[in-house]
């Protein structure tokens, strides 16, 4: 299995984001045709805030140069947004609780990805290095690429629920996890596995961080806890594509007692999607999005 030095993972992330993960090729490579030439027509705006931390400057420049948010906007364009959705990258204040540095702002209708998220992805990816705790589970590339896509889809899901006024009977965070997992599975097998594995490892890493620092779980939080969210994403995956994700159960990552319910959980999400979100999606465009080669095969080896 091809491995990458951890020291270059951050840079790889930036390159990967623009170059292969979300469709923008590196310099010298012919660009893929854009699905949407003008995001403004689809009520999507993008903005990159320069970070104050000099250590993030290089990442900021690479992400901006690669037009990562513009590519994300391509992915979100099939949704009929009733208001302008703002996609932002910036340096964010750190909270004490380990959690993905990305969020949806209800007041601004904005989806923010913080530059610090890439450091978290790197930490998760490090566990997949030879000798790491997740050595045989995923590659660093899968972790970074899949984790990033998973986080972004999760926040986009929250934007979807809010802006489309989707009735949500349960927790909106759990709902967003379900929708993110569901969407992730609609890509080809390689990308789907990357999204599921990356998301799982991100939550698993946060859980490990909590435990290593002797932090108590916050049962009062509106969000499910890190270990719950790790299992939830595995369950959606196994429920939707049991043949592909059976190894999650075989390896004991997902207990059989939970796995027995996963098909029902997956179909619950599918039914909810069809009833509440699909009517707001241009499915012709969405099918193009899903069949676009977002990740080159070599990038997941």
């Amino acid at each position, binding site marked *: 299995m091809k491995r990458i030095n951890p020291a270059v993972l951050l840079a790889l992330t930036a390159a990967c984001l623009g170059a292969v993960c979300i469709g923008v090729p590196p310099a010298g490579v012919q660009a893929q045709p854009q699905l949407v030439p003008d995001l403004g027509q689809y009520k999507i705006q993008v903005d990159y805030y320069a970070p104050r931390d000099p250590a993030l400057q290089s990442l900021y420049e690479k992400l901006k140069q690669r037009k990562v948010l513009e590519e994300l906007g391509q992915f979100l364009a099939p949704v009929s947004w009733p208001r302008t959705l703002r996609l932002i990258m910036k340096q964010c204040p750190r909270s004490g609780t380990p959690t993905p540095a990305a969020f949806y702002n209800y007041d601004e209708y904005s989806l923010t990805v913080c530059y610090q998220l890439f450091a978290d992805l790197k930490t998760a990816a490090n566990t997949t290095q030879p000798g790491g705790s997740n050595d045989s589970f995923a590659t660093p590339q899968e972790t970074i690429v899949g984790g990033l896509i998973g986080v972004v889809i999760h926040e986009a899901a929250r934007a979807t629920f809010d802006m489309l*006024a*989707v*009735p949500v*009977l349960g*927790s909106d965070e759990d709902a967003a996890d379900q929708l993110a997992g569901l969407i992730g599975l609609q890509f080809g097998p390689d990308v789907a596995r990357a999204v599921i594995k990356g998301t799982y490892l991100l939550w698993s890493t946060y859980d490990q961080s909590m435990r290593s620092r002797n932090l108590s779980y916050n*049962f009062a939080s509106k969000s499910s806890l890190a270990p*719950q969210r790790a299992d939830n994403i595995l369950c959606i995956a196994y429920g939707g594509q049991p043949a592909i994700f059976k190894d999650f159960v075989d390896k004991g990552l997902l207990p059989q007692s939970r796995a027995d319910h996963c098909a029902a959980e997956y179909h619950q999400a599918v039914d*909810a999607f069809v009833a509440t979100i699909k009517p707001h999606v241009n499915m012709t465009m969405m099918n193009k999005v899903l069949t676009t080669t977002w990740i080159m095969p070599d990038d997941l080896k």
Partner: protein
Amino acid sequence: MQYLPSWTAAAAMPMVWALAAVAPASAQTPIPPNPQIEIGYVKPTKNPALAPIYEQMQSKKVLETLQIFLAPLKLPAGVKIAVKFNECGGATTMAYQHNGPVTICYEYVARIEQMVPRSAVTLAQGTITPDAAVIGPVTQAALRETALAVFDVMELPVWGRTDDAADRLSAFIMVQFGPNVAWNTIVGTAWFLSGNATAPADFSDIRGVVAQRYYTTLCIAYGGEVRGVTLTKGVTGATGSGLGNFVGGEAAAGSLPLSRAQSCPNEYDAIKQAFVDLFIVPKHVDLTLLDQVQKAFVCSSGASDTDPFRMLACAPTR
């Protein structure tokens, strides 16, 4: 396990089953029970200790109350939901399966009974009475389990964990009937859940852990008090219930942290909007009947001492 002592204590409290002794307020038009809710009490045969609970549930007409409480709900034509009390072989819950029935375990009621205080307990947030300690969790269990069946038979789109959705919907409904009902049912439920919150957490479980259910129930209720908005104009909802006493006061055990409380009005808005979108707008709820049911739970000065709803609506609270 012998359940009789705690049950005997509860049976000595005539107000406990106020919710169960059903009849609409005397001055109002009788509320017809929902014909699409079929009920039953299965006599326990394996554990004789559950027999007193079976008899009490039956004599106090708990499920008949539910039929009236759910009178406004209109299920699709030809669809019925069966709700029954049954023994569950020692387990306190029996997971709902597609097309039901809804099962409320006698063992669950027994567990509730075990945790009922013998006299009113003064918490930092207010008072929990023995009545509320029974009424709250029994009401919540009936609503919650029935909600799972409603999601199923109505094929509703459920985003989020189904059990969590049922908890949220139950809490939302419990704060629609004036401040006293809100306090007694919510705080009673919270009392029961808090007493079970120390059980080892299984993070892989499809359901949330008990402590999360505790905070979510309080959160929806607090959000309801802040918003002060109910589904019909005739009832004040949770405003003035005192549920806000559960917010802040980090030193007080069981308080809702400010970090969560800040989101509670929005969480209440979300479940309210979902209820409106999924039940009201598609006309799955008879608003006239809903108004009647709501008003039946309001404590009125004209109600007699034997008025069954008076016990719940007029019970002393904080």
